[in-house]
């Protein structure tokens, strides 16, 4: 049975508009112009328990709006949404006990006091039994290496430290589902990897279902078995990353280093991207050309020092998907 079911969800916002300039500003005092922006249109999908789903799409596509509807913050205009038997916006108070949410661009920690005070406040808000709180706090402190920063006021933490604390804060009450809205935004490589590892662990060991939005395709590659792609408010793709790869990813690049004295050669059907003495980069379609054979033919030009075969980065795949759907 699916844990999360969305059926025909739609949501539109009224946006005030005015042109620049003083006269326009005065006019807007009396007459406001509004345009209706359809943020979501007929969004339907289901998520099973224990899945990690990456929710992607360009800025303004409706990712955050969907997350906010699923976490009970926004009320949609149309459609139904059932999560663990609850309708988030109707059963909000009872429902939100079972979910953890991190909005990467906001903070749920109290700015002026040490992190641990915020954690204790959350313990009281969720009425977490002392034993469970202790256990979760110890586990999170260890996994996210919080021991050194937990007694520091939030305003003195770096972004990476704060994000680790934010994620810990959203898991203190043992949620079954974790919604992460851009959890790696603005983080350095080390913090990103720490966050990803943690998400994977919490999913594997505690069975927490994770739905995350991100613009960093490395997050998706590292974490998500499944991708939902949204553009201009409609769902465009629902499937695995490897499916996406096999659809678009047959194009490969091969970089060849030759030992001294050899000169790179041309192979029919293979496009040469760059060539210098001792080194050449080619691109080819792996459906049409066999890789072993290609290497054999390339080695005819001289003794090979190194061969590197690469797939196009996921970013490029996504970009092609966006282009195909004109978003």
């Amino acid at each position: 049975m699916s844990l999360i079911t969305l059926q025909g969800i739609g949501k539109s916002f009224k946006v005030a508009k005015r042109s620049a300039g003083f006269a326009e500003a005065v006019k807007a005092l009396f007459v406001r112009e509004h345009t209706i922006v359809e943020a979501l249109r007929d969004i339907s999908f289901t998520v099973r328990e224990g899945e990690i789903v990456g929710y992607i799409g360009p800025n303004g596509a409706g990712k955050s709006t969907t997350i906010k509807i699923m976490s009970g913050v926004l009320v949609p205009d149309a459609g139904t949404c059932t999560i663990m038997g609850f309708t988030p916006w109707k059963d909000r108070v009872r429902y939100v006990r079972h979910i953890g949410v991190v909005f990467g661009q906001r903070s749920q920690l109290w700015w002026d006091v040490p992190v641990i005070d915020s954690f204790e406040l959350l313990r009281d808000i969720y009425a977490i039994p002392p034993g469970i709180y202790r256990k979760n706090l110890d586990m999170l402190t260890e996994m996210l290496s919080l021991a050194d920063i937990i007694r520091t006021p939030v305003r003195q933490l770096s972004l990476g430290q704060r994000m680790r604390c934010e994620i810990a804060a959203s898991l203190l009450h043992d949620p079954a589902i974790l919604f992460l809205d851009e959890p790696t935004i603005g983080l350095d490589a080390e913090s990103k990897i720490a966050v990803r590892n943690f998400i994977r662990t919490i999913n594997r060991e505690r069975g927490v279902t994770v739905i995350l939005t991100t613009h960093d395709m490395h997050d998706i590659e590292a974490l998500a078995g499944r991708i939902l792609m949204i553009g201009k408010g409609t769902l465009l793709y629902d499937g695995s990353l490897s499916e996406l790869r096999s659809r678009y990813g047959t194009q490969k690049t091969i970089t060849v280093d030759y030992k001294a004295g050899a000169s790179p050669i041309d192979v029919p059907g293979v496009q040469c991207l760059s060539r210098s003495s001792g080194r050449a980069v080619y691109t080819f379609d792996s459906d049409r050309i066999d890789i072993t054979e290609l290497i054999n033919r390339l080695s005819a030009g001289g003794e090979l020092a190194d061969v590197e075969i690469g797939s196009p980065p996921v970013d490029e795949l996504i970009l092609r998907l966006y282009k195909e759907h004109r978003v």
Partner: protein
Amino acid sequence: MNAPLSLLKMRFLMGLQYRAAAAAGILTQLFFGLILIMVYAAFYTHNGEAQPMTLKEVVAYVWLQQMFFALIVLWQFDGELFELITGGNIAYELCRPWRLYPIWYAKLLAARLASASLRCLPVALVVFILPEPYRMPLPASPAALLLFILALLSGLLLVAAISMLVYISVFWTMSPVGSVLMIAVAGEFFAGMIVPVPLMPDWMQTLAGLLPFRWTVDFPFRVYTGHIGVREALAGIGIQMIWLAALAAAGEWLMGRALKRVVVQGG
């Protein structure tokens, strides 16, 4: 510990973090109290006619105002709540297993209690030992003191219910400036924060009687001095309760409507 108590504790911790602000607050309160009493003392010496309140009653009124300033002053608004609505952090508020009206109400009470408790005692210590005519008089009777405490506390509940309406209005206006200014000017005056209500002209007193504001300041303070008698005070506490129920019901209903159309600002 449950959530409201815990919020209160958090508030105290935050208040203690900024000791200099509390100290400055205490000095401001003493300064304004002294200036006001000076003005009233001059007015009472040079005006022979009998006034509706004695100077002693006015002195008590002024010092109570300064001591419990943070509890009952209407325009002390919590920037954090405005920030939640206009900055979009309301998203996190709605992810918590609580109903928003009661918890915001509790937050307002917590903010007021925390800031009053840091100021009330130091100011009280000073004003009870000042020389006459500046010295703070004792309550009219033990019964008056008890009723004063009750009236002050329900006044606090009432102030919080009134300011909740201002916070809720921000869901529509997206800027606290207008609603705060309107409520601050009107409420402040009709509460008796600027001039005690008995010293107002008759028509103004009638108007003040029709509004909820005077039940937050004027009423409890005059119970302390005995200007309002015991029986009248009991009836007054009843009226405070009726206002409280009406304002809280209105607030809860409006909040429900606001949340249905909530927009999280800033994506």
